[in-house]
């Protein structure tokens, strides 16, 4: 088995696990009793999608998808900080 076949087989075998994980995170986003629960679930889902995008970049041989993953990770951090600031002071700054 060549390297390409091995890597693509592993990635294809891991895709159902990521599908189940993303579905469970989505259930928590919809059910979440408080805003902080929903934010936590969106946080985990974004980092998960970030890694999934890197896997797809290897699978489809499209390396520019990794740039989107970096931007998504930074955006998630800013989202966290904004929600935390709103929860603490009830305002979003000027």
């Amino acid at each position: 088995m060549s390297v390409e076949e091995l890597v693509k087989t592993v990635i294809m075998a891991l895709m159902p696990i990521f599908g189940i994980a993303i579905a469970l995170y989505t259930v928590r986003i919809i059910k979440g009793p408080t805003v902080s629960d929903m934010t936590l679930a969106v946080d985990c889902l974004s980092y998960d999608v970030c890694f999934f995008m890197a896997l797809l970049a290897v699978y489809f041989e499209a390396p520019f998808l990794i740039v989107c993953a970096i931007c998504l990770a930074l955006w998630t951090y800013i989202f966290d900080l904004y929600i935390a600031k709103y929860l603490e002071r009830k305002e979003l700054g000027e």
Partner: protein
Amino acid sequence: MWEIIQQILLYIGIILVVIGALCDLIGALGLLRFPNFFVRLHAATVGTIGGAVYPLFGLTLMTVACDFLGYWKWLLASGSFITALIIMITAPAGSHALARGAHRRGVPVEPKVCDFLEEDKGRGE
């Protein structure tokens, strides 16, 4: 010699990616099943550090051996390394900020042994 190193990196990377996928599933299950916010925070950290940082480091090692990508494999390897570093620094900081905000908002800490932040808030600090 370089081929042997590439084989070793490939297998280490595949093992890390598989472990990361399992950690991701465990984190999602914990986030769904745990009772309240401050317990769910633990599962969320398993889901981010174990489910995104470790497999991205594994992907860095794995793509070095992927010769079918041509020279783009170096872009993929460095990009996943930078992404893993960013997530490793920012995910704990974001979780701490969110926990502090939720505590200030009055989300109850359910299995509680001691809570110094609440005592400080009661004294008006």
